[in-house]
């Protein structure tokens, strides 16, 4: 059991490390403050974090290339629809945006008793670059707190709500 636990923690660390190495992203996971009585296993926690961080890659690619289909693997429901609408709006206006996450400070808040949704917050630092007809207009670093709800799909957790909040 202890070996398995260590393996899971190591696995979660490797996931975070691989994401960090890919784009020099710092990932920090706060201790959980779960609201429900349903326990969250280390394996599920690692999977949720892995899939959420992966979703940022999908978001970056879709908004930079104006290709909504790149959202399908990571986003579902209202989150997918909104991002896809944004991609279409960008395409109509002739602009692209490049989102580069720099750091994530994650905390899992809620695991629904039926196991069908997990809510987390992410204090994320990221750069936004605005490109209009291939001309870089502006680049700005932002800090925002995202509220994220993920639901399980066939083989992974997918983002259903993706919304930054005003604190």
């Amino acid at each position, binding site marked *: 059991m202890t070996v398995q636990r260590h393996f899971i923690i190591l696995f979660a660390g490797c996931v975070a490390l691989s994401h960090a190495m890919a784009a020099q992203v710092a990932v920090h996971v706060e201790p959980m403050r779960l*609201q*429900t*009585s349903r326990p969250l296993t280390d394996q599920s926690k690692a999977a949720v974090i892995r899939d959420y961080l992966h979703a940022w890659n999908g*978001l970056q690619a879709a*908004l930079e290339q104006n290709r909504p289909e790149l959202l399908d693997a990571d986003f579902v429901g*209202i989150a997918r629809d*909104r*991002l896809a*609408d*944004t991609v279409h*709006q*960008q395409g109509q*206006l002739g*602009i692209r*945006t490049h*989102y580069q996450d720099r750091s994530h400070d994650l905390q899992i*808040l*809620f695991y*629904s*008793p*039926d196991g*069908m*949704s997990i*809510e987390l*917050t992410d204090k994320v630092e990221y750069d*936004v670059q*605005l490109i*209009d007809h291939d001309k870089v*207009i*502006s680049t*700005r670093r*932002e800090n*925002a707190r995202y*509220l994220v*709800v993920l639901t399980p799909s066939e083989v992974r957790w997918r983002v259903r*709500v*993706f*919304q*930054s*909040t*005003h604190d």
Partner: protein
Amino acid sequence: MRSGFTILLSSLAVAAAQLALGQGTTMSLPNTVEAGTAFSIQSTGSGKATLYIIGTGQVLKRDVQLGETVSFPAGSLYNAGRYLAVLAQESSTQNGSFDVVPAKKPVDMSFFAKPSRLPVGLHNAITGTVFVFDTYHNLISAPTPVSFELSTPSGAVQKRTVVSNQGAAWTAMDSTAQQGIDRFVARVEDVSSTRIVGQVPGDPCTLKMSARPSGQQVELITDPVRDCSGNAIPDGTIVTFTQTYKRTQSTIDQPLKRGVAQVTMQVHPGATLSVASGVVMGNQIGWVR
């Protein structure tokens, strides 16, 4: 040489003028905008520019005249989130950010109730989870009271009120003693959503059979089979009759019909007859005839 120096001076003068123009241009952004409401952005300076509003939820682009107020009518920005505003001229840009926050009034909810069917008499076995949204389907993160109500056909009602935390609220309720169709209602202000939960009888509580001769055979019949709350076990539930005789066993599975299970079987004198359903054992009869 002199001509080159003049060009250099001219270039520096133009650059200085453009910088001054850039520095003289400012943009006044709202701190927050409630989703779907009108807002405006004030700029100073002169000349034409392009204003971009950039977010993961929406993107807007306007040609603007510097020094004028740019008004965005209600419904322009409705997806909550952080937005970057960029005021771009030919040679300079100003940028800033602001937040679009969810509307205060809850208008929609996602209500997940599990399970849709369960046995009676279980503690905290029915769970409900609610996510609260505004009219634009923004998750309302402000604490919001959510009431849950589970009512049975007999009129028994369980009520809970939970204040949502970061848009989510949940509760757990007991299945009641009586079988039937329950209504599980979640309500936020004047918005409600209903789920149906079927409560079915639990395991048989007592299982009792009787035996009587029927020609050369023996007829075994159970009393009406009920759970511990007195609910009739549904027809189709399998009841197993077993005859044990000299270390050999023979069994017959029979479904409940009209609440009882009945079978006719060849029985050896001296055999022991027993009855069971699932993990519940009934009485035993020693057949002596």
